[in-house]
Protein backbone atom coordinates (compact mmCIF):
# COMPACT_ATOMS: atom_id res chain seq x y z
CA UNK A 1 0.00 0.00 0.00
CA UNK A 2 1.70 3.24 -0.99
CA UNK A 3 1.04 5.32 2.07
CA UNK A 4 2.94 8.51 2.63
CA UNK A 5 2.73 9.56 6.24
CA UNK A 6 3.26 13.23 6.68
CA UNK A 7 1.45 16.48 6.14
CA UNK A 8 -1.74 15.87 4.20
CA UNK A 9 -1.65 17.29 0.74
CA UNK A 10 -5.19 18.46 -0.06
CA UNK A 11 -5.21 16.80 -3.45
CA UNK A 12 -4.47 13.46 -1.85
CA UNK A 13 -7.35 13.79 0.60
CA UNK A 14 -10.32 11.52 0.15
CA UNK A 15 -12.43 13.58 2.51
CA UNK A 16 -11.97 17.26 3.05
CA UNK A 17 -14.18 19.45 5.25
CA UNK A 18 -13.49 23.16 5.20
CA UNK A 19 -15.42 25.40 7.58
CA UNK A 20 -18.50 23.21 7.39
CA UNK A 21 -21.46 24.32 9.49
CA UNK A 22 -24.93 22.93 9.80
CA UNK A 23 -27.64 24.00 12.15
CA UNK A 24 -30.78 21.92 12.47
CA UNK A 25 -34.22 23.45 12.34
CA UNK A 26 -34.66 23.00 16.08
CA UNK A 27 -31.67 25.29 16.67
CA UNK A 28 -29.37 22.44 17.58
CA UNK A 29 -25.89 22.86 16.12
CA UNK A 30 -25.06 19.80 14.04
CA UNK A 31 -21.64 21.01 13.01
CA UNK A 32 -19.85 24.24 13.72
CA UNK A 33 -17.00 25.32 11.43
CA UNK A 34 -15.61 21.81 11.12
CA UNK A 35 -12.35 21.57 9.18
CA UNK A 36 -10.41 18.37 8.66
CA UNK A 37 -9.02 16.14 5.94
CA UNK A 38 -8.66 12.39 5.67
CA UNK A 39 -6.09 10.87 3.40
CA UNK A 40 -6.45 7.98 1.04
CA UNK A 41 -6.24 4.54 2.66
CA UNK A 42 -6.43 6.00 6.13
CA UNK A 43 -8.31 4.47 9.05
CA UNK A 44 -9.81 7.21 11.17
CA UNK A 45 -11.98 7.20 14.26
CA UNK A 46 -14.44 9.90 15.00
CA UNK A 47 -15.46 10.03 18.63
CA UNK A 48 -17.73 12.16 20.72
CA UNK A 49 -20.82 11.79 22.85
CA UNK A 50 -24.31 11.52 21.44
CA UNK A 51 -25.31 14.71 19.68
CA UNK A 52 -21.74 15.84 19.12
CA UNK A 53 -22.10 15.78 15.35
CA UNK A 54 -20.65 12.40 14.33
CA UNK A 55 -23.76 11.28 12.52
CA UNK A 56 -24.08 14.71 10.94
CA UNK A 57 -20.67 14.22 9.34
CA UNK A 58 -21.77 10.83 8.02
CA UNK A 59 -25.04 12.14 6.67
CA UNK A 60 -23.28 15.06 5.03
CA UNK A 61 -20.86 12.65 3.38
CA UNK A 62 -23.65 10.59 1.79
CA UNK A 63 -25.35 13.83 0.81
CA UNK A 64 -28.41 13.14 2.88
CA UNK A 65 -27.94 16.61 4.35
CA UNK A 66 -26.59 19.79 2.86
CA UNK A 67 -24.29 22.08 4.86
CA UNK A 68 -25.37 25.67 5.32
CA UNK A 69 -21.81 26.84 5.20
CA UNK A 70 -18.43 25.55 4.09
CA UNK A 71 -17.16 23.13 1.49
CA UNK A 72 -17.08 19.34 1.56
CA UNK A 73 -14.91 17.56 -0.96
CA UNK A 74 -14.84 13.83 -1.49
CA UNK A 75 -12.03 12.61 -3.72
CA UNK A 76 -11.55 16.22 -4.78
CA UNK A 77 -15.16 16.70 -5.82
CA UNK A 78 -17.22 19.44 -4.23
CA UNK A 79 -20.40 17.75 -2.98
CA UNK A 80 -22.51 20.84 -3.56
CA UNK A 81 -21.80 20.48 -7.29
CA UNK A 82 -23.54 17.10 -7.44
CA UNK A 83 -27.13 17.53 -8.65
CA UNK A 84 -29.88 15.61 -6.91
CA UNK A 85 -30.28 13.23 -9.81
CA UNK A 86 -26.63 12.22 -9.59
CA UNK A 87 -26.71 11.47 -5.87
CA UNK A 88 -27.48 7.75 -6.31
CA UNK A 89 -24.45 7.39 -8.59
CA UNK A 90 -22.29 9.26 -6.12
CA UNK A 91 -23.45 7.01 -3.27
CA UNK A 92 -22.29 3.92 -5.12
CA UNK A 93 -18.72 5.01 -4.44
CA UNK A 94 -19.29 4.95 -0.71
CA UNK A 95 -19.99 1.98 1.51
CA UNK A 96 -22.08 2.79 4.56
CA UNK A 97 -22.53 0.74 7.72
CA UNK A 98 -24.97 1.70 10.45
CA UNK A 99 -25.53 0.86 14.07
CA UNK A 100 -28.91 -0.69 13.25
CA UNK A 101 -27.56 -2.60 10.22
CA UNK A 102 -30.33 -1.44 7.88
CA UNK A 103 -30.71 -4.78 6.14
CA UNK A 104 -33.68 -5.56 3.95
CA UNK A 105 -35.73 -7.84 6.19
CA UNK A 106 -37.40 -9.82 3.43
CA UNK A 107 -34.22 -10.83 1.62
CA UNK A 108 -31.70 -13.49 2.40
CA UNK A 109 -28.12 -12.65 3.28
CA UNK A 110 -27.13 -13.40 -0.30
CA UNK A 111 -29.87 -11.21 -1.76
CA UNK A 112 -29.14 -8.35 0.59
CA UNK A 113 -25.57 -8.20 -0.66
CA UNK A 114 -26.59 -8.88 -4.25
CA UNK A 115 -28.99 -5.93 -4.16
CA UNK A 116 -26.12 -3.45 -3.97
CA UNK A 117 -24.80 -4.95 -7.21
CA UNK A 118 -28.20 -5.17 -8.91
CA UNK A 119 -28.65 -1.47 -8.27
CA UNK A 120 -25.51 -0.72 -10.23
CA UNK A 121 -26.64 -2.88 -13.12
CA UNK A 122 -24.22 -5.77 -12.70
CA UNK A 123 -25.02 -8.92 -14.65
CA UNK A 124 -26.19 -12.04 -12.85
CA UNK A 125 -22.90 -13.71 -13.68
CA UNK A 126 -20.90 -10.94 -11.99
CA UNK A 127 -23.20 -11.12 -8.99
CA UNK A 128 -22.73 -14.87 -8.73
CA UNK A 129 -18.98 -14.33 -8.68
CA UNK A 130 -18.71 -11.35 -6.35
CA UNK A 131 -21.26 -12.05 -3.65
CA UNK A 132 -19.81 -15.37 -2.44
CA UNK A 133 -16.37 -13.75 -2.44
CA UNK A 134 -17.31 -10.91 -0.16
CA UNK A 135 -19.37 -13.19 2.07
CA UNK A 136 -16.33 -15.45 2.47
CA UNK A 137 -14.28 -12.39 3.43
CA UNK A 138 -16.82 -11.49 6.09
CA UNK A 139 -17.16 -15.07 7.32
CA UNK A 140 -20.75 -15.61 6.31
CA UNK A 141 -20.34 -18.42 3.79
CA UNK A 142 -22.60 -20.73 5.77
CA UNK A 143 -25.40 -18.19 6.20
CA UNK A 144 -26.15 -17.40 2.56
CA UNK A 145 -29.79 -18.36 2.67
CA UNK A 146 -30.69 -17.11 6.12
CA UNK A 147 -32.88 -14.10 6.63
CA UNK A 148 -31.60 -11.20 8.76
CA UNK A 149 -33.87 -12.03 11.69
CA UNK A 150 -32.27 -15.48 11.89
CA UNK A 151 -28.82 -13.99 12.50
CA UNK A 152 -27.08 -12.64 15.57
CA UNK A 153 -26.32 -8.93 15.81
CA UNK A 154 -22.68 -9.47 14.90
CA UNK A 155 -23.62 -11.53 11.88
CA UNK A 156 -26.10 -8.93 10.73
CA UNK A 157 -23.44 -6.27 10.97
CA UNK A 158 -21.14 -8.48 8.90
CA UNK A 159 -23.83 -8.70 6.24
CA UNK A 160 -24.16 -4.96 6.18
CA UNK A 161 -20.37 -4.60 5.90
CA UNK A 162 -20.36 -7.15 3.09
CA UNK A 163 -23.04 -5.14 1.32
CA UNK A 164 -21.10 -1.91 1.82
CA UNK A 165 -17.91 -3.46 0.51
CA UNK A 166 -19.14 -5.63 -2.36
CA UNK A 167 -18.69 -2.79 -4.84
CA UNK A 168 -15.17 -2.22 -3.51
CA UNK A 169 -15.82 1.45 -2.80
CA UNK A 170 -12.82 3.70 -2.21
CA UNK A 171 -14.48 4.99 0.96
CA UNK A 172 -16.27 3.15 3.74
CA UNK A 173 -18.24 4.96 6.43
CA UNK A 174 -19.30 3.21 9.62
CA UNK A 175 -21.65 5.02 11.99
CA UNK A 176 -21.47 3.37 15.42
CA UNK A 177 -20.96 -0.06 13.84
CA UNK A 178 -20.48 -1.70 17.24
CA UNK A 179 -23.09 0.27 19.13
CA UNK A 180 -25.44 -2.69 19.48
CA UNK A 181 -22.82 -5.37 19.94
CA UNK A 182 -20.99 -6.96 22.85
CA UNK A 183 -17.23 -6.25 23.27
CA UNK A 184 -16.00 -9.50 21.78
CA UNK A 185 -18.22 -9.16 18.70
CA UNK A 186 -17.16 -5.51 18.45
CA UNK A 187 -13.54 -6.59 18.12
CA UNK A 188 -14.53 -8.96 15.31
CA UNK A 189 -16.25 -6.13 13.50
CA UNK A 190 -13.30 -3.78 13.99
CA UNK A 191 -11.00 -6.47 12.68
CA UNK A 192 -13.16 -6.83 9.62
CA UNK A 193 -13.12 -3.08 9.03
CA UNK A 194 -9.37 -3.03 9.44
CA UNK A 195 -8.99 -5.85 6.95
CA UNK A 196 -11.05 -3.86 4.48
CA UNK A 197 -8.87 -0.84 5.17
CA UNK A 198 -5.81 -2.95 4.32
CA UNK A 199 -7.15 -3.44 0.79
CA UNK A 200 -6.74 0.29 0.27
CA UNK A 201 -10.20 1.48 1.22
CA UNK A 202 -10.36 4.61 3.34
CA UNK A 203 -12.37 3.87 6.48
CA UNK A 204 -14.04 6.38 8.76
CA UNK A 205 -15.59 4.96 11.92
CA UNK A 206 -17.79 6.95 14.27
CA UNK A 207 -18.08 5.58 17.77
CA UNK A 208 -18.44 6.65 21.37
CA UNK A 209 -16.41 3.75 22.67
CA UNK A 210 -13.35 5.62 23.96
CA UNK A 211 -11.73 2.52 25.40
CA UNK A 212 -11.67 0.72 22.09
CA UNK A 213 -10.34 3.77 20.27
CA UNK A 214 -7.56 4.33 22.78
CA UNK A 215 -6.42 0.77 22.41
CA UNK A 216 -6.43 0.84 18.65
CA UNK A 217 -4.20 3.88 18.38
CA UNK A 218 -5.44 5.15 15.05
CA UNK A 219 -5.97 8.71 14.10
CA UNK A 220 -8.79 10.17 16.17
CA UNK A 221 -11.07 13.09 15.50
CA UNK A 222 -13.02 14.13 18.53
CA UNK A 223 -16.18 16.13 18.18
CA UNK A 224 -18.00 18.03 20.87
CA UNK A 225 -21.12 20.08 20.23
CA UNK A 226 -20.38 20.18 16.55
CA UNK A 227 -16.75 21.27 16.90
CA UNK A 228 -13.58 19.36 16.23
CA UNK A 229 -11.89 19.44 19.63
CA UNK A 230 -9.14 16.88 19.03
CA UNK A 231 -7.37 15.70 15.90
CA UNK A 232 -4.53 13.37 16.67
CA UNK A 233 -2.99 12.47 13.37
CA UNK A 234 0.22 11.57 15.09
CA UNK A 235 2.53 8.70 14.25
CA UNK A 236 1.54 6.85 17.39
CA UNK A 237 0.80 3.76 15.43
CA UNK A 238 2.31 1.58 12.81
CA UNK A 239 0.37 2.13 9.63
CA UNK A 240 1.18 -1.18 8.09
CA UNK A 241 0.64 -3.42 11.03
CA UNK A 242 -0.98 -6.75 10.26
CA UNK A 243 -4.53 -7.55 11.15
CA UNK A 244 -3.23 -10.01 13.72
CA UNK A 245 -1.18 -7.35 15.50
CA UNK A 246 -4.09 -4.97 15.29
CA UNK A 247 -6.46 -7.37 16.95
CA UNK A 248 -4.05 -8.53 19.59
CA UNK A 249 -3.62 -4.95 20.65
CA UNK A 250 -7.37 -4.54 20.90
CA UNK A 251 -7.51 -7.50 23.22
CA UNK A 252 -4.74 -6.41 25.55
CA UNK A 253 -6.24 -5.15 28.73
CA UNK A 254 -9.15 -7.55 28.35
CA UNK A 255 -7.17 -10.74 28.43
CA UNK A 256 -4.17 -12.18 26.74
CA UNK A 257 -5.46 -15.29 25.15
CA UNK A 258 -4.04 -15.94 21.72
CA UNK A 259 -6.51 -15.18 19.02
CA UNK A 260 -7.19 -17.68 16.33
CA UNK A 261 -7.50 -15.74 13.12
Amino acid at each position, binding site marked *: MPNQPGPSAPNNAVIEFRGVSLRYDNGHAGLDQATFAIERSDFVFMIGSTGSGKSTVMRLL*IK*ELEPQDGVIRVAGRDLSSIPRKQV*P*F*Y*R*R*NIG*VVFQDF*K*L*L*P*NRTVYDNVA*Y*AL*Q*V*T*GHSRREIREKVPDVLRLTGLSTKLHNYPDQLSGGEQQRVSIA*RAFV*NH*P*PLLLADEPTGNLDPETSIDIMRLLYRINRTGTTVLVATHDHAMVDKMRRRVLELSQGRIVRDEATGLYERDESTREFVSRLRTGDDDRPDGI
Partner: protein
Amino acid sequence: MKPNVKANFNFAFFLRESMRAMRRNAAPSFAALATVTVTLIVVGVFIPIVQATRGAADSVRARVEVEVYAKERATPAADARILAELKALPNVQKVVFESKAQALAAAKKQDPAAYALLSSNPLPDTFHIYPSNANDALPIRQAILGVGNKSDGHAKLDREIATVSNHTDDTQKLLTVTRFVTITAALLAALLTIASVLLIGNTIRLSLFARRREIEVMKLVGATDWFIRWPFVIEGTIVGALGAVGAIVVLGVTKLALLDPLASNWTLIAAPRTISFISLVLVLVLSGVCVSALGSGMSLRRFLRV
Protein backbone atom coordinates in the same frame (compact mmCIF):
# COMPACT_ATOMS: atom_id res chain seq x y z
CA MET B 1 -15.10 2.49 -9.92
CA LYS B 2 -16.28 1.76 -13.39
CA PRO B 3 -18.69 4.27 -14.81
CA ASN B 4 -22.00 2.51 -14.95
CA VAL B 5 -24.14 5.01 -16.70
CA LYS B 6 -26.03 2.60 -18.92
CA ALA B 7 -29.72 3.01 -18.43
CA ASN B 8 -30.47 -0.28 -16.77
CA PHE B 9 -34.10 -1.08 -17.35
CA ASN B 10 -34.14 -4.76 -16.69
CA PHE B 11 -37.80 -5.74 -16.92
CA ALA B 12 -37.28 -9.33 -15.80
CA PHE B 13 -35.48 -8.11 -12.70
CA PHE B 14 -38.18 -5.55 -11.86
CA LEU B 15 -40.89 -8.16 -12.39
CA ARG B 16 -39.12 -10.58 -10.08
CA GLU B 17 -38.72 -7.80 -7.52
CA SER B 18 -42.40 -6.90 -7.57
CA MET B 19 -43.41 -10.57 -7.33
CA ARG B 20 -41.14 -10.97 -4.35
CA ALA B 21 -42.58 -7.86 -2.74
CA MET B 22 -46.13 -9.13 -3.16
CA ARG B 23 -45.29 -12.54 -1.79
CA ARG B 24 -43.48 -11.06 1.18
CA ASN B 25 -46.04 -8.33 1.90
CA ALA B 26 -49.09 -10.48 1.30
CA ALA B 27 -51.37 -8.65 3.74
CA PRO B 28 -51.00 -5.09 2.39
CA SER B 29 -51.04 -6.38 -1.18
CA PHE B 30 -54.24 -8.25 -0.49
CA ALA B 31 -55.77 -5.17 1.13
CA ALA B 32 -54.93 -3.12 -1.97
CA LEU B 33 -56.34 -5.87 -4.19
CA ALA B 34 -59.57 -6.06 -2.20
CA THR B 35 -59.96 -2.28 -2.27
CA VAL B 36 -59.53 -2.17 -6.02
CA THR B 37 -61.99 -5.04 -6.51
CA VAL B 38 -64.69 -3.58 -4.31
CA THR B 39 -64.31 -0.09 -5.76
CA LEU B 40 -64.47 -1.38 -9.30
CA ILE B 41 -67.56 -3.46 -8.53
CA VAL B 42 -69.27 -0.31 -7.31
CA VAL B 43 -68.11 1.62 -10.36
CA GLY B 44 -69.16 -1.24 -12.61
CA VAL B 45 -72.66 -1.24 -11.15
CA PHE B 46 -72.89 2.51 -11.18
CA ILE B 47 -71.88 3.18 -14.78
CA PRO B 48 -74.93 1.38 -16.29
CA ILE B 49 -77.23 2.87 -13.66
CA VAL B 50 -76.13 6.40 -14.45
CA GLN B 51 -76.41 5.69 -18.12
CA ALA B 52 -79.86 4.19 -17.79
CA THR B 53 -81.03 7.17 -15.78
CA ARG B 54 -79.67 9.62 -18.29
CA GLY B 55 -81.02 7.55 -21.15
CA ALA B 56 -84.48 7.55 -19.61
CA ALA B 57 -84.32 11.29 -19.04
CA ASP B 58 -83.14 11.86 -22.60
CA SER B 59 -85.85 9.69 -24.13
CA VAL B 60 -88.47 11.57 -22.16
CA ARG B 61 -87.03 14.87 -23.31
CA ALA B 62 -86.90 13.65 -26.90
CA ARG B 63 -90.65 13.24 -26.78
CA VAL B 64 -91.21 16.92 -26.07
CA GLU B 65 -92.83 18.44 -29.13
CA VAL B 66 -94.89 21.39 -30.17
CA GLU B 67 -98.03 20.62 -32.16
CA VAL B 68 -99.41 23.18 -34.55
CA TYR B 69 -102.97 22.74 -35.88
CA ALA B 70 -103.98 24.30 -39.19
CA LYS B 71 -107.41 25.82 -39.72
CA GLU B 72 -110.19 23.60 -41.01
CA ARG B 73 -110.21 25.15 -44.47
CA ALA B 74 -106.46 25.19 -44.99
CA THR B 75 -105.49 24.27 -48.53
CA PRO B 76 -102.52 22.04 -49.41
CA ALA B 77 -100.75 25.19 -50.62
CA ALA B 78 -101.26 26.84 -47.23
CA ASP B 79 -100.02 23.70 -45.50
CA ALA B 80 -96.86 23.73 -47.59
CA ARG B 81 -96.33 27.40 -46.76
CA ILE B 82 -96.79 26.80 -43.01
CA LEU B 83 -94.41 23.86 -43.17
CA ALA B 84 -91.74 26.04 -44.76
CA GLU B 85 -92.29 28.81 -42.23
CA LEU B 86 -92.08 26.42 -39.27
CA LYS B 87 -88.92 24.87 -40.64
CA ALA B 88 -87.39 28.31 -40.90
CA LEU B 89 -87.81 28.93 -37.15
CA PRO B 90 -84.65 28.80 -35.04
CA ASN B 91 -83.88 25.69 -32.94
CA VAL B 92 -86.25 23.49 -34.87
CA GLN B 93 -84.79 20.08 -35.49
CA LYS B 94 -87.51 18.73 -37.74
CA VAL B 95 -91.13 19.25 -38.59
CA VAL B 96 -93.39 16.35 -39.43
CA PHE B 97 -96.59 17.04 -41.32
CA GLU B 98 -99.63 14.92 -40.60
CA SER B 99 -102.61 15.45 -42.87
CA LYS B 100 -106.23 15.21 -41.73
CA ALA B 101 -106.53 11.74 -43.21
CA GLN B 102 -103.30 10.51 -41.59
CA ALA B 103 -104.36 11.94 -38.25
CA LEU B 104 -107.69 10.16 -38.46
CA ALA B 105 -106.06 6.87 -39.38
CA ALA B 106 -103.67 7.14 -36.47
CA ALA B 107 -106.47 8.04 -34.07
CA LYS B 108 -108.63 5.19 -35.33
CA LYS B 109 -105.86 2.75 -34.71
CA GLN B 110 -105.67 3.90 -31.11
CA ASP B 111 -109.38 3.85 -30.39
CA PRO B 112 -111.38 2.20 -33.19
CA ALA B 113 -114.68 2.20 -31.32
CA ALA B 114 -114.81 5.94 -30.73
CA TYR B 115 -113.95 6.91 -34.29
CA ALA B 116 -116.18 4.32 -35.94
CA LEU B 117 -119.20 6.44 -35.07
CA LEU B 118 -117.90 9.57 -36.78
CA SER B 119 -119.21 10.40 -40.20
CA SER B 120 -116.71 13.14 -41.00
CA ASN B 121 -113.12 13.82 -40.02
CA PRO B 122 -112.93 16.35 -37.17
CA LEU B 123 -109.18 16.36 -37.01
CA PRO B 124 -107.13 19.25 -38.45
CA ASP B 125 -103.93 19.09 -40.43
CA THR B 126 -101.16 18.81 -37.80
CA PHE B 127 -97.52 19.82 -37.73
CA HIS B 128 -95.31 18.08 -35.17
CA ILE B 129 -92.32 20.26 -34.34
CA TYR B 130 -89.39 18.59 -32.67
CA PRO B 131 -87.05 21.17 -31.12
CA SER B 132 -83.34 20.50 -31.35
CA ASN B 133 -83.28 20.82 -27.56
CA ALA B 134 -86.23 20.15 -25.29
CA ASN B 135 -85.57 23.48 -23.56
CA ASP B 136 -86.45 25.29 -26.81
CA ALA B 137 -90.01 23.96 -26.91
CA LEU B 138 -91.53 26.91 -25.07
CA PRO B 139 -89.74 29.67 -27.01
CA ILE B 140 -90.77 27.99 -30.24
CA ARG B 141 -94.36 27.92 -29.13
CA GLN B 142 -94.20 31.61 -28.26
CA ALA B 143 -92.61 32.45 -31.60
CA ILE B 144 -95.48 30.75 -33.41
CA LEU B 145 -98.16 32.44 -31.33
CA GLY B 146 -96.52 35.85 -31.50
CA VAL B 147 -94.66 36.88 -28.35
CA GLY B 148 -96.43 39.16 -25.93
CA ASN B 149 -99.39 39.63 -28.30
CA LYS B 150 -102.63 38.59 -26.58
CA SER B 151 -105.01 39.83 -29.29
CA ASP B 152 -107.15 37.47 -31.33
CA GLY B 153 -104.35 35.74 -33.15
CA HIS B 154 -103.50 38.08 -36.01
CA ALA B 155 -99.90 38.18 -34.87
CA LYS B 156 -99.56 34.44 -35.35
CA LEU B 157 -96.87 33.15 -37.65
CA ASP B 158 -99.42 32.36 -40.32
CA ARG B 159 -103.06 33.25 -40.86
CA GLU B 160 -103.94 29.63 -41.52
CA ILE B 161 -102.72 28.41 -38.09
CA ALA B 162 -105.67 27.69 -35.80
CA THR B 163 -103.97 26.89 -32.48
CA VAL B 164 -100.79 25.59 -30.92
CA SER B 165 -100.93 22.75 -28.42
CA ASN B 166 -100.74 24.00 -24.87
CA HIS B 167 -98.57 21.73 -22.70
CA THR B 168 -96.63 24.57 -21.12
CA ASP B 169 -96.96 23.32 -17.57
CA ASP B 170 -96.25 19.71 -18.43
CA THR B 171 -93.23 20.61 -20.52
CA GLN B 172 -91.91 22.85 -17.77
CA LYS B 173 -92.21 20.11 -15.15
CA LEU B 174 -90.69 17.53 -17.41
CA LEU B 175 -87.74 19.75 -18.15
CA THR B 176 -87.10 20.51 -14.48
CA VAL B 177 -87.29 16.88 -13.41
CA THR B 178 -85.07 15.53 -16.16
CA ARG B 179 -82.49 18.25 -15.60
CA PHE B 180 -82.43 17.42 -11.91
CA VAL B 181 -82.00 13.72 -12.63
CA THR B 182 -79.18 14.34 -15.09
CA ILE B 183 -77.28 16.68 -12.79
CA THR B 184 -77.67 14.36 -9.82
CA ALA B 185 -76.36 11.42 -11.80
CA ALA B 186 -73.37 13.38 -13.03
CA LEU B 187 -72.63 14.60 -9.51
CA LEU B 188 -72.82 11.10 -8.08
CA ALA B 189 -70.54 9.80 -10.80
CA ALA B 190 -67.98 12.52 -10.04
CA LEU B 191 -68.14 11.83 -6.30
CA LEU B 192 -67.75 8.12 -6.86
CA THR B 193 -64.73 8.65 -9.09
CA ILE B 194 -63.03 10.89 -6.54
CA ALA B 195 -63.82 8.48 -3.72
CA SER B 196 -62.42 5.55 -5.68
CA VAL B 197 -59.17 7.32 -6.50
CA LEU B 198 -58.71 8.47 -2.91
CA LEU B 199 -59.51 5.05 -1.51
CA ILE B 200 -57.11 3.21 -3.78
CA GLY B 201 -54.45 5.88 -3.33
CA ASN B 202 -54.74 5.64 0.43
CA THR B 203 -54.45 1.88 0.46
CA ILE B 204 -51.33 2.07 -1.69
CA ARG B 205 -49.87 4.72 0.55
CA LEU B 206 -50.47 2.50 3.55
CA SER B 207 -48.66 -0.44 2.00
CA LEU B 208 -45.79 1.84 1.00
CA PHE B 209 -45.58 3.22 4.50
CA ALA B 210 -44.99 -0.30 5.78
CA ARG B 211 -42.03 -0.49 3.44
CA ARG B 212 -40.48 2.93 3.91
CA ARG B 213 -37.45 1.49 5.70
CA GLU B 214 -36.82 -0.77 2.78
CA ILE B 215 -36.94 2.21 0.43
CA GLU B 216 -34.52 4.11 2.67
CA VAL B 217 -32.01 1.25 2.48
CA MET B 218 -32.35 1.07 -1.27
CA LYS B 219 -31.52 4.74 -1.52
CA LEU B 220 -28.50 4.29 0.73
CA VAL B 221 -26.90 1.69 -1.50
CA GLY B 222 -27.29 4.05 -4.43
CA ALA B 223 -30.50 2.97 -6.13
CA THR B 224 -31.92 5.61 -8.44
CA ASP B 225 -35.49 6.76 -7.89
CA TRP B 226 -36.75 4.91 -10.93
CA PHE B 227 -34.88 1.77 -9.99
CA ILE B 228 -36.90 1.76 -6.77
CA ARG B 229 -40.08 2.90 -8.44
CA TRP B 230 -40.43 0.41 -11.27
CA PRO B 231 -41.16 -2.64 -9.09
CA PHE B 232 -43.81 -0.62 -7.28
CA VAL B 233 -45.41 0.51 -10.52
CA ILE B 234 -45.40 -3.04 -11.88
CA GLU B 235 -46.86 -4.25 -8.62
CA GLY B 236 -49.56 -1.60 -8.87
CA THR B 237 -50.33 -2.68 -12.41
CA ILE B 238 -50.65 -6.31 -11.39
CA VAL B 239 -52.80 -5.50 -8.37
CA GLY B 240 -55.00 -3.21 -10.47
CA ALA B 241 -55.40 -5.81 -13.20
CA LEU B 242 -56.19 -8.60 -10.75
CA GLY B 243 -58.64 -6.36 -8.90
CA ALA B 244 -60.35 -5.50 -12.19
CA VAL B 245 -60.56 -9.17 -13.16
CA GLY B 246 -62.09 -9.97 -9.77
CA ALA B 247 -64.64 -7.17 -10.16
CA ILE B 248 -65.49 -8.28 -13.69
CA VAL B 249 -66.04 -11.87 -12.61
CA VAL B 250 -68.41 -10.75 -9.87
CA LEU B 251 -70.24 -8.35 -12.20
CA GLY B 252 -70.43 -10.93 -15.00
CA VAL B 253 -71.86 -13.63 -12.74
CA THR B 254 -74.38 -11.16 -11.34
CA LYS B 255 -75.40 -10.08 -14.82
CA LEU B 256 -75.86 -13.64 -16.07
CA ALA B 257 -77.59 -14.90 -12.94
CA LEU B 258 -79.83 -11.96 -12.04
CA LEU B 259 -80.08 -9.28 -14.66
CA ASP B 260 -80.43 -11.22 -17.89
CA PRO B 261 -83.41 -13.39 -16.76
CA LEU B 262 -85.11 -10.28 -15.43
CA ALA B 263 -84.49 -8.33 -18.60
CA SER B 264 -85.95 -11.03 -20.83
CA ASN B 265 -89.08 -11.36 -18.74
CA TRP B 266 -89.56 -7.72 -18.28
CA THR B 267 -88.76 -5.60 -21.28
CA LEU B 268 -88.85 -2.42 -19.26
CA ILE B 269 -85.43 -3.03 -17.74
CA ALA B 270 -83.77 -3.59 -21.08
CA ALA B 271 -85.21 -0.43 -22.54
CA PRO B 272 -82.57 2.22 -21.84
CA ARG B 273 -79.44 1.82 -23.88
CA THR B 274 -76.46 1.13 -21.61
CA ILE B 275 -72.80 0.37 -22.05
CA SER B 276 -72.04 -3.07 -23.50
CA PHE B 277 -70.42 -5.57 -21.19
CA ILE B 278 -67.26 -5.69 -23.32
CA SER B 279 -66.74 -1.91 -23.08
CA LEU B 280 -67.46 -2.05 -19.36
CA VAL B 281 -64.75 -4.69 -19.00
CA LEU B 282 -62.30 -2.49 -20.90
CA VAL B 283 -63.16 0.58 -18.85
CA LEU B 284 -62.75 -1.27 -15.56
CA VAL B 285 -59.45 -2.95 -16.45
CA LEU B 286 -58.01 0.28 -17.79
CA SER B 287 -59.08 2.44 -14.88
CA GLY B 288 -58.01 -0.20 -12.35
CA VAL B 289 -54.56 -0.53 -13.86
CA CYS B 290 -54.05 3.19 -14.41
CA VAL B 291 -55.22 4.37 -11.00
CA SER B 292 -53.28 1.73 -9.15
CA ALA B 293 -50.05 2.00 -11.16
CA LEU B 294 -50.06 5.80 -11.14
CA GLY B 295 -51.06 5.78 -7.48
CA SER B 296 -48.13 3.54 -6.58
CA GLY B 297 -45.64 5.55 -8.58
CA MET B 298 -46.82 8.88 -7.24
CA SER B 299 -47.36 7.95 -3.60
CA LEU B 300 -43.79 6.73 -3.61
CA ARG B 301 -42.48 10.21 -4.25
CA ARG B 302 -42.92 11.20 -0.64
CA PHE B 303 -40.82 8.31 0.56
CA LEU B 304 -38.10 8.85 -1.98
CA ARG B 305 -37.06 12.13 -0.42
CA VAL B 306 -34.23 10.72 1.66
